[in-house]
């Protein structure tokens, strides 16, 4: 304990020193999203500049702030000035910022997104007042993009492991009581009360018991868990340690998909550091409680996000789910009681224990407490990670935080919950988001993916896209999912190709409800959701596809004919230049035409036209 206290002091001191550093510090968002946008090159360039210029500037790689559409992000700490966050930084810009602001006086306000600490800087607003940040409440993401995820000291300085220490102090019963008070529900999708899950496992007969972190984030367009693991891995480890302490488990596994190498790397480092601190391992801090953690890499099967399939995969078997009961809490890993929670759930736990369940329960709705992290993507201006209290409306997220659809297009729907979720139409935009409300609307919370669609999205095509994904990802074990989803996909393909028949919608509904109630696991149990919810809210689009053989959104190639509105066309020639089939003709400044026989319906002209003169007939 003494050495731990000393470490807290030392870490806090180090953190404070960094915050009030007398030399400039550059924080670069180096999570996967940042790297994909070019953060690696920015770091290299900055390192070279710092070396060449012989200046005393510190460079710290941090996680993701969540402002993904503005990546790469660089936050500059200049002694005596408030910290400034810059967005869309390329190597040249980074050199410019170093030269002009860090070493000079020009804050480069046009590149700045806002200040992240108190104090004023000319021409730069507060980041918290940035439209994408207002309305957000950062609990889970509080460390992401702020601390160095490879330095445990940063986490410890920000009250790291205080929750775990408190749990050790008050004992498992009171700890469980706090979780119950908090009303925390599983963030993986189904929203099962976490305390209840823990209690089942805790009471289950059988030794040893296991805890597992489900980090097999497979939904297309979802990356909350990845960002947490990359930006704040310690919170996951601490949450698991608390859970294991309550349940009485001595071993834990983190099942991460192999596609997340950076998350695996950061988690591995975090486990190593935590172990060397004596917060993992045998007889932790002399409490008698032992806990060991291991990372298991998944091979990227969507179905392995399902509990029983995940367990099978950890055991080295084929990742196929099995019929429940018995539930994992009774007979899970190696046939022993096992508790599985999602990354975000675990990550929520330390703060609940540290600050008490009541504080957590203070935000959110009646039956859904706390905050939820969403990954906002699709045809929306501001994409990225968004953490809002439960009960926030879809409109707030899409329009206030997300800035609404791009190019002033008409909003059409939000797909919530990934392939297992459903589409929420504009009419339900004012729905307060929580587990139950989404379920009622035919969608689901899922892990928190939100895909925004506008008028140019074909809902039949969306359903087809998700089903194609699910056909590929179905494990193939049960007839309902393997054959049923494939046949639903077949029907959707035929509708999109203009071969739809009367009765196809009813057939889809019939198949959909069959697959839903007959499938073995929740992959099949939710697979028809994209189809059923789009039929529910956009039945007319299906009917147009089947009866009129038309796709108004201009997506289903067989059902689209592009024409140029002669009145709107200004004869700019963009479409003429880009058409791969040379189907567009027309003189400059004159209205252009599309030769329907040559047109391959690629839609390039439709996308290109700055005057929206290309229309779908």
């Amino acid at each position: 304990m003494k050495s731990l206290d000393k470490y807290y002091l030392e870490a806090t001191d180090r953190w404070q020193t960094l915050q009030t550093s007398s030399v400039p510090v550059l924080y670069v968002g180096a999570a996967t999203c940042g790297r994909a946008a070019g953060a690696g090159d920015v770091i290299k360039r900055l390192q070279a500049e710092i070396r060449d210029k012989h200046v005393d500037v510190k460079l710290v790689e941090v996680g993701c702030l969540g402002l993904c559409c503005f990546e790469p992000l660089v936050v500059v700490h200049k002694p005596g000035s408030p910290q400034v966050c810059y967005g869309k930084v390329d190597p040249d810009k980074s050199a410019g910022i170093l030269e002009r602001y860090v070493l000079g006086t020009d804050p480069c306000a046009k590149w700045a997104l806002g200040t992240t600490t108190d104090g004023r800087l000319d021409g730069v607003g507060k980041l918290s007042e940035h439209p994408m940040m207002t309305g957000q409440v950062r609990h889970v993401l509080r460390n992401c993009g702020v601390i160095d995820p490879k330095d445990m000291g940063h986490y410890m300085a920000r009250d790291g492991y205080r929750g775990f220490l408190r749990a050790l102090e008050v004992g498992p019963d009171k700890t469980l009581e706090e979780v119950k008070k908090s009303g925390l529900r599983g963030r993986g999708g189904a929203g099962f009360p976490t305390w209840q899950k823990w209690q089942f496992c805790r009471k289950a007969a059988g030794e040893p018991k296991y805890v597992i972190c489900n980090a097999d984030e497979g939904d297309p367009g979802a990356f909350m868990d990845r960002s947490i693991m990359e930006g704040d891995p310690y919170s996951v480890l601490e949450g698991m340690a608390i859970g294991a302490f309550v349940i009485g488990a001595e071993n834990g596994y983190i099942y991460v998909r192999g596609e997340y190498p950076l998350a695996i790397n950061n988690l591995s480092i975090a486990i190593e550091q935590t172990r060397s601190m004596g917060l993992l391992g045998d007889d932790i801090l002399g409490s008698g409680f032992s806990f060991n953690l291991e990372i298991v890499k998944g091979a990227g099967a969507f179905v392995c996000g399902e509990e029983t399939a995940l367990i099978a995969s950890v055991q080295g078997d084929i990742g196929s789910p099995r019929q429940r009961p018995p539930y994992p809490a009774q007979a899970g890993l190696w046939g022993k009681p096992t508790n599985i929670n999602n990354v975000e759930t675990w990550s929520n736990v330390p703060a609940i224990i540290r600050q008490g369940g009541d504080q957590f329960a203070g935000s959110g709705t009646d039956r859904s407490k706390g905050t939820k992290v969403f990954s906002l993507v699709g045809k929306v201006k501001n994409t990225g990670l968004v953490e809002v209290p439960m009960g926030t409306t879809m409109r707030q997220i899409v329009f206030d935080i997300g800035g609404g659809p791009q190019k002033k297009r008409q909003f059409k729907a939000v797909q919530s919950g990934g392939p297992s979720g459903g589409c929420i139409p504009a009419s339900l935009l004012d729905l307060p988001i929580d587990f139950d409300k989404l379920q009622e609307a035919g969608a689901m919370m899922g892990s928190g993916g939100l895909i925004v669609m506008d008028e140019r999205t074909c809902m039949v095509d969306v359903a087809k896209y998700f089903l194609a994904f699910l056909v590929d990802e179905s494990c193939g074990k049960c007839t309902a999912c393997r054959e049923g989803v494939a046949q639903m996909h077949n029907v959707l393909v035929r509708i999109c190709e203009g071969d739809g028949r009367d009765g196809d919608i009813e057939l889809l509904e019939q198949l959909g409800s069959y697959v839903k109630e007959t499938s073995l696991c929740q992959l099949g149990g939710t697979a028809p959701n994209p189809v059923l919810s789009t039929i529910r809210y956009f039945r007319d689009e299906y009917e147009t596809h089947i009866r009129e053989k038309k796709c108004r959104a201009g997506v289903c190639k067989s059902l689209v004919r592009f024409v140029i509105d002669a009145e709107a066309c200004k004869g700019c020639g963009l479409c003429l230049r880009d058409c791969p089939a040379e189907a567009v003709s027309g003189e400059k400044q004159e209205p252009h035409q599309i030769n329907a026989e040559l047109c391959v319906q690629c839609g390039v002209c439709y996308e290109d036209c700055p005057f929206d003169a290309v229309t779908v007939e």
Partner: protein
Amino acid sequence: MIKLTIDGQQVEVEPGRTILDAAKLAGREIPTLCHHPAVPPAGACRICVVEIVAGGRPGLVPSCAYPAQDGMEIQTCSERVLQSRRMTLQLLLARSPGSEVIQEMAAEHGIKEIPFPKQTGESGDDCIMCGLCVRLCQQIVGASAICFDGRGPDRKVSTPYADRSDVCLGCGACAFVCPTGAIDPAEYCPNPIEKIPNEFNCGLDSRTPIHLPFPQAVPNKPLIDRENCIRFKTGGCGACADICPAGAINYDMTDEFVEEDVGAIIVATGYEIMDPSVYEEYGYGRYPDVVTSLEFERMVSASGPSNGELTRLSNGKPPKSIVFLQCIGSRREKNGKPYCSKICCMYTAKHTILYKHKVHDGQAFVFFMDVRAGGKNYDQFVRRVVKEKQATYLRGRVSKVYARGDKLMVRGADTLSGTQIEIAAEMVVLAPALVPSSGIRDLSQKLRVGYDEHGFLLEAHPKLRPVDTNTAGVFLAGACHSPKDIPESVAQAGAAASKALGLICHTRLSREPTIGIVDESSCNGCFECEGVCAYGAIGPRELTDKKGNLLATVAFINEGLCQGCGACAATCRSKSIEVQGYRDDQLFAAINAIHR
């Protein structure tokens, strides 16, 4: 016990049982495909879904894999269940349109057409991906020779790395359990699949390692063949014990020696037929359509390998012409048995009738040496066969059987017309010589019963004591003694039984008087005699005077044990043992008498 309601009917089951088990108890039929009582359930095919109405999470669940719970209320054929089942069948039919099992099930559920495209091409096979074979191979057989490859609609049953692996035992259990008959173990096994020949059907079909030896066996109970049983081969499986409701299967049972004290023994070990492949001219073993009379007997039997349908082993078609060859090895001095096998004439005549019964327009020929139909009504029977033209009888022998096309050419002599004959037959039936059961020599030496050069056991006297042997208490019945037909065997068995009863029904045993006696006055107690006595009849006896002082220890012969062989008498140096009736002086007198 767990109480639940199935279709309104109360059932009680043990904890751990599934809804399917409970439904069976309630007498409710639930269709299954991927379920096998010996294999842990998977709930993969979803055909067995039932509806939980109350007492559990309401909804459809697979009855084969869902544990019965207290207070559950189950509907096995609600509209919701039937709708789901119909859809499952439609989907399976789209996948495996050619599978008869699925077609039948679909028809039973009133499915006439499927509203979506049939899967054709590679995946459009009979395999419905239920995975029963894979589970069986991994969890029961313990070989893990087959597995799934790929996922979703591309899933297929394959081997690890699509390689034939030596871990495959070639047991064929996968094909045995496959509900649609879609799996061929030969596709996976690197070694030829060796089926276990069914001994009772002369190896014409196969059997499982656990099997009934033959219909109406006594006792009529299955036995496990350790050589082939996977449990004994790999330590896995154990499926039969799992599913036996009586818990009657015990793998620890071993063969044991049973010792019984008996007063009489009847030897009735029967006969075998000799292997006719030693006579190459008949082509047995070379041509599949050359069969023995015993094989023919099984082929036409209703409980035989083809359920009584007579078909050629070469092409599965009924033989339109058939030739019966008698005396194969019998009455053959050179390379054969000099004796007549006695039963062949009659059973061949019967076989010709059975043949005509199976193949109405077929033609039968019989090559014979003599028709020996001695016995009550026997000759009339054979004459009827000839007269009714069931078969053409040809007196003569066959020199060669050879193949031409898909026919067997039988070349022989008809000695009555003095011509050479060649018949194009589709099947040839040989009547091989009868020989005693193998192992008869070991048995006869144990029983001290004599046997002839062919191994047939010797009676005590050919005319006067035909059922006895020279060993008291051992009697003979049936073909262990000589080739016999059924009435003769039954008669001899009856005689042997009454002889045995005659022996053991007495309270006292009479014995021969010719046993050894010790002259105690001259015996010096060397006990050489004790070593040569095969019956342990000789032991020591202490002679004492009236005061009880030990005078001498001499040999003593137990009258009950002594058989009177005289080995002791010939061994005794002091000439102190004599065999009554064969005393030295008697024998010397006999020797002297010869020379008088």
